């Protein structure tokens, strides 16, 4: 039976208690962020916000031109799932917009709350931490917005601003820190990576009788494969598939123990880490002197 789609009725505050765990000091230090929330977090956040507004046209524009038509409202899966109105893309962006209006626009400075502007305070910060981490940056809202307003850009800006003041989540920071330690999100150390590859080689020989190699750290191969690290650990059929494909095509290839992760959690944190993690792919490619990088996630 086909059930007609209907957006949920508003359940105000229904997901406000679904919080992420705060980041741990050991991870924050490794990824060049303040180890805990700064004592002058408000000033740090406003300083970062001014910087972000001057660096990203998208953020400034999207905060300025939203007409609140509501076309995005029933498109966000987080709103559809929770019914919490603050999970509507427009309302999520409003969390940043009201602070932007208060400190960076003439109208907000003059009219104050009548112009829906708000001081950056503890309560606002709490909402930011809650709702900007309930966005998966999927950009579905931007497909339906008549101006292409992309709430993922707003979410990324808000997370960058919070990170600058030492506010982030455990999940994201832990994964990013893990990449710098082991080269991948899952924390697979180099010996384990090599062992997994050797195991897959044997397994393939035993089950299918195929002599397919899973080369690791081979200097001078043609192709560096940067798979999602889970392919070597959980979804091993995918890894076997890559190897078979390269084997059949006769392409010399290798994985790297320095960089064996296609996913980049810097996207969920800040630009510096996003870039640093991507740089690892280039460094690995240079050190291995490969001609091409195949890179998926």
């Amino acid at each position, binding site marked *: 039976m086909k059930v007609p789609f209907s957006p949920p009725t508003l359940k105000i505050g229904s997901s406000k208690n679904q919080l992420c765990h705060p980041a741990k000091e050991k991870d924050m230090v490794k990824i060049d962020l303040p180890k805990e929330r700064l004592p002058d977090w408000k000033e740090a956040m406003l300083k970062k916000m001014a910087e972000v507004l001057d660096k990203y*046209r998208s953020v400034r524009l999207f905060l300025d031109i939203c*007409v*609140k038509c509501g076309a995005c409202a*029933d498109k966000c899966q987080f709103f559809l799932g929770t019914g919490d109105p603050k999970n509507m893309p427009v309302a999520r962006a409003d969390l940043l917009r009201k602070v932007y209006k208060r400190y960076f626009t003439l109208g907000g400075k003059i009219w104050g709350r009548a112009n*829906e502007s708000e001081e950056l305070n503890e309560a606002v910060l709490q909402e930011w931490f809650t709702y900007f981490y309930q966005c998966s940056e999927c950009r579905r809202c931007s497909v339906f917005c008549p101006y292409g307003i992309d709430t993922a850009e707003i979410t990324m800006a808000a997370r960058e601003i919070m990170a600058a003041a030492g506010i982030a989540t455990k999940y994201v920071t832990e994964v990013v820190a893990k990449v710098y330690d082991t080269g991948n999100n899952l924390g697979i150390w180099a010996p384990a990576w090599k062992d997994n590859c050797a195991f897959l080689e044997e397994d393939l020989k035993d089950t299918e009788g195929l002599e397919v190699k899973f080369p690791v750290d081979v*200097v001078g191969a043609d192709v560096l494969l940067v798979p999602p690290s889970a392919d070597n650990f959980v979804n091993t059929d995918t890894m076997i598939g890559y190897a078979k494909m390269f084997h059949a095509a006769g*392409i010399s290839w290798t994985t790297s123990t320095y960089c064996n992760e296609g996913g980049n959690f810097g996207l969920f944190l800040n630009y510096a880490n996003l870039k640093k993690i991507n740089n690892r792919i280039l460094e690995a490619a240079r050190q291995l002197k490969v001609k091409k990088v195949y890179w998926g996630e």
Partner: protein
Amino acid sequence: MATKFLFIYLPYISAGIFTLGVLYRFWRWARTPVPLRIVTTPAPRTTVRVILRMVGDVLWFPSLFKGDKFLWLAAFFFHGCLWLVVLRHLRFFFYPVPEWVVAMQPLGLYAGYLIPFPLAFLLARRLVMERNLYISILGDFFALFLIMAVAISGILLEVFFRAYVVDVKALILGLIHFQPVVPEMSWLFALHFLLIMVLMVYFPLGKLMHAGGLFFSSTRNQRANWEQRFVNPWDFPVGYNPQNLFPPEKYRPAPAESREGKKE
């Protein structure tokens, strides 16, 4: 004095605020760099297709059509009528009146009669639908009521309390040629005129800037030419943290002989 202020000083002040305000907003957006390629899928691959996409976005709002059919209908109807009404008013700005402006007069007139209907729908939508009421702010209602007031005063001027068109034209041509005259006008015309001035002042301050802002929208005006490198103007080098357990200098890949890569 009041009439002199309304018909002479205020038009210049509001036109100044409108022009400078809009230019300032454009300049502010234009000088902010675009660091990343964030074009929304399905993405155009050539400049011609980008232009076609933008023309579509400006004229018939295809994204909104995908998102919300009723809202699209009201928005399209409203913006279409608004264009026709604005074009119809061009007859006050030109002497002699261009042929095509004369030709579209009836069309503009009917558009003017109809414009309160989509406006009323947009207003009702904000008030009746709970999630739209939640996101609506004062500025949204202000803009709606302002345009509604302009439209209704305009319709009343056309139908019941007609202004003497020659005087209106003398007023506007006088303003354009910097030889303003203070006309004898009804209070209704004064109100219609005042509301337009308010709209012009409010335009660059609030969300009405969506009109020009669309052209700056990175998700819509970019190309998906992945072959070409996109350079971030404010890119910076990233260094390594001494606490990282696996910095690049520790990475020593084995030479080709020691491990077998398939190489023929």
